[in-house]
């Protein structure tokens, strides 16, 4: 199994006719993802290499049975695009777009929670999600992930950083470890899907045996995840936190990666995770090695 998406997930790409949407939409289809539709109100009725384009997510869902959407709309249109997806009837929305204002993110997070509790948003500003061998929705290079093999120990990954997610997938592949699902939750202040959402799903997924969690400075999501790990997780967790040496008050690339008022430091996060029983690597390579040990011992 896998979490959130698999080979049955039918995806509509909002912004499929744009350069980014087209590039990744076609790459995702090549990987095996069911890319069933695109949207663009001005190009409804046309197609992108055989993928039909509809005026709205609602129309795409009606015509194709799409269950998920992937947003490649520029930042100014994201707030409307997220609501269009929810109103259109998909239950999983992946928003790749970066640069979305925090006020918009806070607004649609709460709006979805209240009016569309059945809709799960991933992102914004995330690399997307891949269930290796089944579906790849977003901008991850699919070939750097090893698909799980029946009977072998399988790892789930959840990460706040794009490149470190790829790094983790790659290190596991080099060590011949399969991945059930890799979720990039993104580096923004209000991520639609949290570490805990993913940990909970991995804990419940019979195919996932261990979890790799990659965090970074800023906010308290890692500390909250640590509480969850201590209280609810039976599966081993290996973690890595980026930004140990980040100076206070500086935004380290990601909008959410900032240490303020002594809060959000990597040290505090690592300490909380260790106390929760997770094994913490000091760099991505070490975290990879720890995961190899964990897998060997399972």
């Amino acid at each position, binding site marked *: 199994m896998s979490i959130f998406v698999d080979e049955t997930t039918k995806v509509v790409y909002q912004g499929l006719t744009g350069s980014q949407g087209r590039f990744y939409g076609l*790459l995702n289809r090549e990987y095996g993802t069911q890319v069933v539709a695109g949207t663009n109100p001005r190009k409804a009725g046309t197609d992108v290499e055989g993928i039909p384009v509809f005026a709205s997510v609602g129309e795409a869902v009606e015509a194709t049975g799409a269950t998920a959407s992937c947003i490649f709309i520029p*930042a*100014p249109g994201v707030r409307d695009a997220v609501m269009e997806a929810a109103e259109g009837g998909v239950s999983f929305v992946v928003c790749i777009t970066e*640069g*979305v*204002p*925090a*006020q918009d993110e*806070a*607004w649609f*997070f*709460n*709006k979805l929670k*209240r009016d569309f509790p059945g809709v799960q948003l991933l992102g914004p500003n995330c690399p997307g999600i891949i269930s290796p061998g089944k579906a790849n929705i977003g*901008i*991850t*290079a699919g*070939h*750097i992930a090893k698909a799980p093999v029946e009977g072998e120990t399988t790892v789930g990954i959840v*990460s*706040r*950083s*794009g*490149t*470190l*997610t*790829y*790094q983790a997938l*790659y290190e596991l592949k080099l060590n011949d470890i399969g991945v059930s699902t890799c979720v990039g939750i993104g*580096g923004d*202040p*209000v991520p639609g899907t949290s570490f805990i959402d993913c940990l909970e799903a991995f804990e419940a997924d019979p195919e996932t045996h261990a979890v790799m969690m990659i965090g*970074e*400075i800023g*906010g*308290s*999501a890692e500390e*909250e995840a640590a509480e969850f790990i201590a209280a609810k997780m039976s599966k081993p967790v290996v973690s*890595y936190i*980026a*930004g*140990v*040496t*980040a*100076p206070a008050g*500086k*935004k*380290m*690339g*990601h*909008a*959410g*990666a900032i240490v303020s*008022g002594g809060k959000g430091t*990597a040290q505090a996060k690592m300490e909380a995770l260790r106390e929760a029983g997770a094994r913490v690597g*000091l*760099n*991505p*390579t*070490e975290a990879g090695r720890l995961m190899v040990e964990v897998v060997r011992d399972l």
Partner: protein
Amino acid sequence: MDLFEYQGKQFFARYGIPVSPGEAVTTVDDAVAAAERIGYPVVVKAQVQVGGRGKAGGIKLAGDAGEVRTHAGNILGMDIKGHTVETLWIELASDIAEEYYASFTLDRSAKKHLGMLSAQGGVEIEAVAAENPEAIAKIWVDPVDGLTEEAARAWVGAAELNPAATEGAVAILTKLYSAYVEGDADLVEINPLILKPTGEVHALDAKVTLDGNSLFRHPDYEAYEATQVRDEREQAAHDKGLQYVGLDGFVGVIANGAGLAMSTVDIVNQVGGEPANFLDIGGGASAEVMTGALEVINNDPKVRSIFINIFGGITKGEEVANGIVAALDRVDIEVPIVIRLDGTNADLGREILEPHLSDKLQMQPTMLDAAQAVVALAGK
């Protein structure tokens, strides 16, 4: 984007929040002229984005032109915790009966807006939070609902301000919330929010951080971009559109992706080196971007070696390698470079780099190996 006090007050004024009349000036003569227009007494305030201005002597009351001249002369050019004072805000002095604190920011954990209000203002709110947390009344606002007047009134009641301040405080807080949401701020803070002996409530200071992602809604915020405090290196990187943070060490760092860049800075530290910077060149790693990044690093005189850490995802190893080779042709670099290239088609990329390797251009297989090599090359 952090605003100076004078910009914050101009921002507040747009949303109808009462602030003192004042003018921003950069010379002593202009300070005096501004004071003459405003009327005495005035307060001469250093404009720096750091707390503790008053204690450092950066805020002075002036009763006449002579005093303005003296204080402005002393404060302009003053160094406050590493920030040089280049601008003064001259404003009409206010009579103060009581000092409060008010702010809005995002509570990332609750994923709601957090308002904080305290009857203990004019001091560092962190100190109040540590010593007397019950003195801060908090309100969590659902962004979908917004802050209603009723909720604001209950909040003011909970903060136990002087009853004379209630109406004024409710009015200011609802406007402050509008400024925070409609103005796309990450933080709005008034400390102190004052009650005057005459009963009016008024913002005596303004601390505002705007969301850089909201420029498409607020093209006028471009003006604030120009006054952001950056060191020379940060300014050069910003002009090239690179994500750069200056640090104090001697190993230059270039990586693709914010997480990997942070991770690279960390690992340089772990093996005993000191990074000179954080630099994220994003996903592409084209020759143009790589050239810009190397130029920025090369202009930092403290850099003694450079670590290029690239993980190829969609961008393939050979494209990255070609980008590096082309960039090295364009920029004349004295210090040694260590490259770690991994990910998609890393083998092909390494083949391309192989013929260019020398004492001054090394390649290492892992991040750890590369970090050790680059720190060793930096020497003592």
